[in-house]
C-alpha cells in the first residue's frame, strides 16, 4: 500500500467504468435469495443436530475417553488455518509492494473475517456445557495455551473485521449515488460505513496511517494465532504432536489452505460477477505460482515432520508413523499427501494448469485435502495414548465420527459460506478506489474504454 494517495483518480473517467462494473452485481437479487434460502435450510438441519447434542451431551459424538478431540478440533484448526490468508495477501504481499494483489485483497479479507469468526463458534461446538464458556474468561489460567488461543482468535478476528471495514471506506463514499438499484437499507448501511468520507487528502492520509497500523499488527497476531493453535498440540509429549517445528508447520499449511480458498472465490467472482476484466487470467497465473511456493514450503515441513521420526522409529512415535504410513489411516494419509500437496505441486509447474478452470479444480481438491489433513493431525495421536487401553468397550479404541457431529461440522462450514456470500454480494468485492488509483497512475496501460 502506497504511503500517499493521488486523488486525481476521482476526476478520471475510468472511475465511472470501474465503479459501475464492480457495483453492478451488488444487491439483493433472485438468485442470491435462492442461494441464501438453500443455505439457511441446510443450516437449520445442522442446528437441529446441535440441538440434539445440547440435549444429550457429547455422547452423541464419536468422542470417548481416549479420543476426546475429534472432528470439531480438526475443523477448528482448519478454520483458523484458512483465515490466515488475509494476513498473507493484504499484509505481507501488499506491504512489499506487489500491485497484483490489489484486486484480491478484499477477497482475502472476507475469508479472514468469515473463517476466524466461525472458528470461535467451532470451538464452542466441542463443549459439552457451552453455557460455561464465560468460565474461560472468569477462571482461565494465563499459563494455558487454551487461554492464549482464545485471546489471539478474538484479536485476529477484530483486526480482520477492522481491516475489511477500513479499506472499504473510500468505496462506500464512491458508491454514494451509484447504488440506486439496491434496497434502501443497504444504501443506509453504505452511508454509515463511509464514516463521512469526502475524499479529502487529509482523510486519505489518516486512513492510510490507520490501515498501515492494522496491516502491521495483523502480522504478529496471525503468526500468534496459528502458532498458539499448534502449541495446543505441541506442548504435550504425545507422539505425533511432540514436535518443535509444529508452529511453522501449521503456518505454512495454513497458507496452502488459504491460497486455495482465495483461488476458489476468485473463480466465483470472475465468472458469476463477470469481473474478468479485474480478476484476470494473469492473476490466476500469479496465484498459481503463490500456491506452488507455499505448497513447496509446506512439503518441506512435512518432510521434516514425518521423515525424521520415521528414521528414528522410537517406540511410541513408530506406532504412530506405522498407523499413518501403512495402518488404519494410511489411505487417508497418502490421499491427502498426494492429492492435496504433491500432485498439485507438479501440475502447477505447467503454465496451462495455472489457467482459471484447472486452478479452480486444483484449489477445491487442495482445500478438501487440507481439511482431512487436520483430521490426520488430531485423531491418530489421540488413538495411541501412552497408557494401555484396557477394559474398555471396543468402540472406544478408534474414533468414528457420528452423523450428528458431521452435521454440526457441515453447519459451521455453511455458516462460513453464508458470511462470505453476504459480504461478497452486498459490498464491492474488489476495492474500487485502489483499482481506479492504479489505472489512473498508468493511463497508457489502461484505456478509458
Amino acid at each position: 500500500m502506497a504511503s500517499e494517495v493521488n486523488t486525481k483518480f476521482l476526476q478520471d473517467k475510468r472511475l465511472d467504468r470501474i465503479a459501475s462494473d464492480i457495483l453492478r452485481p451488488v444487491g439483493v437479487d433472485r438468485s442470491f435469495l435462492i442461494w441464501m434460502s438453500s443455505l439457511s435450510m441446510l443450516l437449520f438441519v445442522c442446528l437441529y443436530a446441535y440441538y440434539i447434542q445440547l440435549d444429550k451431551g457429547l455422547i452423541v459424538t464419536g468422542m470417548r475417553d481416549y479420543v476426546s478431540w475429534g472432528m470439531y478440533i480438526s475443523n477448528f484448526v482448519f478454520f483458523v488455518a484458512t483465515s490466515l490468508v488475509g494476513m498473507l495477501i493484504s499484509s505481507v504481499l501488499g506491504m512489499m509492494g506487489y500491485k497484483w494483489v490489489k484486486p484480491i485483497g478484499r477477497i482475502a479479507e472476507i475469508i479472514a473475517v468469515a473463517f476466524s469468526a466461525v472458528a470461535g463458534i467451532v470451538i464452542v461446538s466441542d463443549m459439552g456445557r457451552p453455557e460455561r464458556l464465560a468460565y474461560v474468561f472468569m477462571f482461565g489460567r494465563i499459563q494455558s495455551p487454551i487461554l492464549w488461543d482464545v485471546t489471539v482468535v478474538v484479536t485476529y478476528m477484530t483486526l480482520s473485521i477492522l481491516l475489511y471495514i477500513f479499506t472499504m471506506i473510500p468505496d462506500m463514499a464512491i458508491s454514494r449515488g451509484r447504488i440506486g438499484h439496491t434496497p434502501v437499507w443497504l444504501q443506509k448501511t453504505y452511508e454509515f460505513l463511509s464514516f463521512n468520507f469526502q475524499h479529502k487528502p487529509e482523510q486519505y492520509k489518516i486512513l492510510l496511517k490507520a490501515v498501515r497500523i492494522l496491516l502491521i499488527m495483523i502480522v504478529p497476531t496471525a503468526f500468534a494465532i496459528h502458532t498458539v493453535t499448534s502449541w495446543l498440540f505441541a506442548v504435550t509429549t504425545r507422539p505425533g504432536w511432540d514436535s518443535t517445528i509444529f508452529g511453522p508447520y501449521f503456518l505454512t499449511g495454513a497458507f496452502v489452505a488459504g491460497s486455495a480458498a482465495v483461488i476458489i472465490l476468485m473463480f466465483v467472482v470472475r465468472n458469476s460477477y463477470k469481473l474478468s476484466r479485474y480478476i484476470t487470467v494473469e492473476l490466476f497465473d500469479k496465484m498459481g505460482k503463490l500456491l506452488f511456493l507455499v505448497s513447496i514450503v509446506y512439503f518441506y515441513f512435512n518432510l521434516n515432520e514425518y521423515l525424521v521420526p520415521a528414521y528414528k522409529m522410537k517406540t511410541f512415535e513408530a506406532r504412530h508413523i506405522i498407523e499413518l504410513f501403512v495402518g488404519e489411516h494410511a489411505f487417508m494419509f497418502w490421499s491427502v499427501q498426494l492429492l492435496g500437496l504433491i500432485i498439485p505441486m507438479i501440475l502447477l509447474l505447467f503454465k496451462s494448469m495455472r489457467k482459471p478452470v484447472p486452478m479452480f479444480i486444483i484449489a477445491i481438491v487442495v482445500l478438501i485435502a487440507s481439511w482431512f489433513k487436520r483430521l490426520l493431525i488430531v485423531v491418530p495421536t489421540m488413538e495411541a495414548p501412552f497408557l494401555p487401553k484396557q477394559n474398555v468397550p471396543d468402540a472406544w479404541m478408534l474414533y468414528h465420527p457420528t452423523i450428528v457431529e458431521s452435521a454440526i461440522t457441515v453447519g459451521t462450514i455453511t455458516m462460513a459460506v453464508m458470511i462470505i456470500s453476504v459480504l461478497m454480494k452486498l459490498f464491492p468485492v474488489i476495492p474500487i478506489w485502489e483499482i481506479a488509483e492504479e489505472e489512473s497512475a498508468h493511463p497508457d496501460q489502461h484505456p478509458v474504454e
Partner: protein
Amino acid sequence: MILKSTFFVVLNFVAVVLLAQTTPWEVPADRSAKLSTAAFTDQNRNTGKDLYQTNCKSCHGDPGKNNVIKLVPPPPDPATTQLQQNSDGSLHYKISEGRGAMPAFKNIMSSADIWNVISYLRSYNKDYRQLLAVKPAYGGEVFDKVDLKLTADPTHNAIVAQLTGLKGSLVKPIAGLEVKLFAKRYFGNLMVDKPMDTDTEGKALFSYPKNLPGDASGKVSLIAQLSNEELFGLVRTESTMAIGLPTDRPPLNEPRALWNVVQKTPIWLLVTYLASVLIVWGFIVLALLKLRAIFKLGE
C-alpha cells in the same frame, strides 16, 4: 545381551506371578485360631462397611458383584468361598500382615476395627456362626478404667508411657504389658523404637531419634497403644510434643509455576502475555481513534 536380560526379566516376572498364585498363604496356628472377644453386632458391621469402602473396595470391589480389580493373582471377592473359608483368625492375620499387593493394615486400622471389617465380610456368608473368645482377665484384677499417658524426657531423648489402672479412687500402675509408640504420618504410622513392656511402676521407656521430622515448630504427633487389645479393649493415647526437627517446607503449590493456579503465574509469562495483549489492543484503539478523526474531517 539386551534380549537375554529382557528374557530373564520376563522369566522372573512369570516366576513371581506363578509363585504368588500357587503358594498358599500360611497363617501361624495361634493366629488362625484367634477369635474376637466381642460379638459382631449391626453397629460393628456398619463401622466395618465404612472401613471396607475406604480401605478395601478399590481392589476387592463390591462384595458379591465380582468387580474386583484385575491383578495377578486377583484379589478375592468377599462373598466367595475362597475368602469365606478362612477362619476369623486367618482373616485377621491376613488383613493385619498383608502379602504382595495386599497392604498390611496393622498400623493403619486398630485390631478392633479389623474385627469390624471381618464382621462386615461375614455378613455375606449365610452359614457363618460366630465363635467368641473368652475375654481374658489381667491377673484376676478388674479396673474401672485403664489409662495411658505420654510424657517427654528430652534430656534423655526419651518418651515415657505410663500405664495405670483406676479402681474407685485407687490408682495402680500396671506392669508387664507391651506398649507400642508411633509417630503419626500419612497412611500408616511410623513405629518409634521397639515395642516395650511396662516396668513395675507401669512405665515404658522409648528412645526416639533426634532427626524425627516434625512440623514447622518441630512438633510430632505421637500415639501410644497397648498391644493387647483383649485385656482392656483399645487403650490408646495421642499427644503432640516438640521433640522433632522443625521442617518448614513450603507447600508444593507455593511457587509461581506453569502448572499452578492463575494467581501463581510466572512473572515472565504474566508480563509477556499482558504486554502483547496491551500493545496489540492499544494499536487497535489507535486505529479506531483515527476513524473518529476521519469522521470529524468529513463534517
